[in-house]
């Protein structure tokens, strides 16, 4: 880190004078806005405005099928959500899902990246094999895994029957198993992304460090513990944060594979938001649930910032 600070160019190359620079800036401002406009308009229309709309409607009894925001509800929608058992159940499912996907997705991606990095020949094959599922759309993944999990005739149940369980519980049909089934699907699907990030991080570590360590008599495990893991620290915080946010936003796989079922045993917060706002027409209440999830995600991001600041201080 300190090395790169030193390399920062100190002598400006043909830097324009202050006056010239502000002229250029004034002249560039308008075209700059024009260049940003195509993206900016979509960003405002489809991201900023919906978020503002969500914040406003969460305080109203907004109905999908009635005009305007409806009657003022104060904190009524929030009170409803915070006292609704299904909301807490969905929040727990979301957090539970985040826990059971983030840990394997970080640990396994790390392990597989180290293994793949050691492969001398046909490394491209492993990189491809791990990454290919990630480029498939969630709908395709959901179909494949629903086949695998289908009761009695599916691959998984056939395997369990062959292993001596005559009537295995259907994975997606059993309340305690449904979300785990979705989690396994998700791990298989998205591990490639973290894997690639780790592999890139690994290839950035200078070989000399390992050679020096080997000369000093460090074992393989000591090398991983004292060189690889510390030098991948930043990659790990990035991967963990991205993974936590991605997992908290879980929707597609649950919607497609179980629709939140059986009953509500795999319902997640975004599923609840969609059901409330669009199926039940209650946009106000759905917005409140969405804002609450936003707050959870902001807290996670805030914690990550604090950790990073602490890491920086240690590095400095």
């Amino acid at each position, binding site marked *: 880190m300190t090395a790169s600070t030193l390399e920062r160019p100190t002598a400006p190359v043909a*830097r*324009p004078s202050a006056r010239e620079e502000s002229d250029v800036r004034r002249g560039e401002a308008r075209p700059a806005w024009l260049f940003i406009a195509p993206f900016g308009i979509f960003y405002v229309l489809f991201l900023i405005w919906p978020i503002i709309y969500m914040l406003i409607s969460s305080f109203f009894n907004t109905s999908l*099928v009635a005009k305007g925001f409806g009657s003022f509800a104060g904190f009524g929608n929030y009170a409803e959500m915070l006292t609704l058992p*299904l909301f807490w159940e969905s929040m727990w499912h979301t957090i539970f899902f985040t826990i059971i996907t983030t840990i394997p997705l970080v640990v396994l991606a790390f392990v597989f990246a180290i293994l793949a990095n050691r492969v001398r020949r046909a490394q491209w094959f492993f990189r491809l094999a791990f990454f290919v599922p990630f480029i498939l759309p969630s709908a395709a993944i959901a179909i494949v895994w629903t086949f695998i999990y289908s009761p009695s005739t599916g691959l998984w149940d056939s395997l369990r029957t062959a292993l001596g369980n005559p009537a295995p519980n259907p994975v997606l*049909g059993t309340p305690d198993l449904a979300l785990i089934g979705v989690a396994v699907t998700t791990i298989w699907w998205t591990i490639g992304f973290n894997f690639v990030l780790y592999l890139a991080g690994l290839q950035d570590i200078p070989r000399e460090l390992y050679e020096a360590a080997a000369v000093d008599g460090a074992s393989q495990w000591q090398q991983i513990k004292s060189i690889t893991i510390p030098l991948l620290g930043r990659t790990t915080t990035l991967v963990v944060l991205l993974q936590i946010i991605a997992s908290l936003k879980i929707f597609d796989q649950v919607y497609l594979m179980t629709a939140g079922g*059986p009953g509500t045993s795999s319902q997640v917060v975004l599923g609840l938001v969609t059901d409330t706002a669009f199926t*039940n*027409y209650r946009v106000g209440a759905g917005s409140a649930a969405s804002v609450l999830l936003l707050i959870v995600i902001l807290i996670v991001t805030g914690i990550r910032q604090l950790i990073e600041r602490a890491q920086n201080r240690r590095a400095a």
Partner: protein
Amino acid sequence: MTAVPQRPSGNPSGRFSRRSLLRGGLGAAGALGIAGGLSGCGSAISAGLVGSQLDPGTVTYWNLFGGGDGSRMQTMEATYEKQKGPNSLQAATFAWGNPYYTKVSLATLGDAPPDVAVSHLTRQSNLAIAGLLEPITEDMLAMVGLSSSSFSPKVWEALAVNGQRYAIPIDTHPFVLYYNKDVCEKADLLDGDGNLKEIRGTDQWEAALEAAKKVTGSWGASVATVGDTATSWRWFQSLYSQQTGSTPWLGDGGRKLTYNEDLTIKTLDYIQSLTKKKLMPAITDYTGSQTLMFTGKSAFYLQGEWEITTAESIDGLKFGMVPVPTLFDQPACQGDSHTFVLPRMNRSEDQLKRALGFVKSLLDQSLTWAQGGHIPAYVPTLDSQQYKDLKPQSNYADAVNSVVYDAQAWYSGSGSNFENTVGAQFGLVQQGQATPAAALSTARDQLLVYADTKSPL
């Protein structure tokens, strides 16, 4: 920093011309691209972009039919297209249940609904109350030679929403009993004509299942218990409604839970006793339950009549269909009707007539639809000799009169939150994972949330 162009500031004209050329060129290329794209990709995208009609003369039609219903509906659509020429119809099929109704609602609100959409009778009331549907008047029906008396009185009656009608019914689809003739023959359950002897009361039912089980070596009857909340609800609601004193589940537009608690527990106990006695499988899903009957591992199979198409496609399977046997006091079975609705939009007289003409064309093909198991709501077909000759479909035509529709509420109807909530719990009872009392109490708690919520309609 170094990336900032080092340009003499005293030459605005040169810069201007280059930039404007670039901008103009990009604009022109973009316009060409869009125009080319539009003419190339067909009229759907351009009509969507400028919000015009798809193609004057085309009827857009949305439905939720899969499986046998889906292919039969496609046959009927093809007949319409053959009559009216190419591009007269654009039909789309969506995933069944809540996702479908969510799409219909959002499309209507977004001012881009189909001309005609299918809706369950139990779902059209909510769409109507939300103001998403065009009322159907006698005048409108008369435009294509129909009137309210063209439909089964019971169905037409059930369609009323605040004294108005918003839908045109095509069928009634009750929950029925399928039986495997080979198995039933060996179990001595058939009469001289090869039809199922009438089963009445729980004793006869269990005796029949015992006899069948001896033949199959596995099960007497099968009904889905896993991954299909609707079936669990249908099986329960059929048996519950057969008992004197069974009140509708919901009252006052869904604000009150009005079910009879003792009868509910009693019914659930009975359903669970059948799986506990191993007369019916505790764990089987929608397709699993029918495979058991198709392959002779159970004699009976309970499901909506629409699965007749699947049963017919099984080589060498001889089967029959009858209404759900009356195990308690009176005949009853859970059911619903498919209807056509006209989502709210600005329609010209022509468009309206075309949409109704399409509906009429499908009603005229009610016999094709009836082959898929559904009991026609269109009287000319229902009374026709051809329908009466249609076996086993016409065997259960009387079920129209004992069909019990789900109670009206903003969260109720086929494939709704109500069915999902209650059905999921009752499924656990069938599987033996929950006691009837525990399941009912969970379902009650979950329903109360909806009942206590201000209706968004």
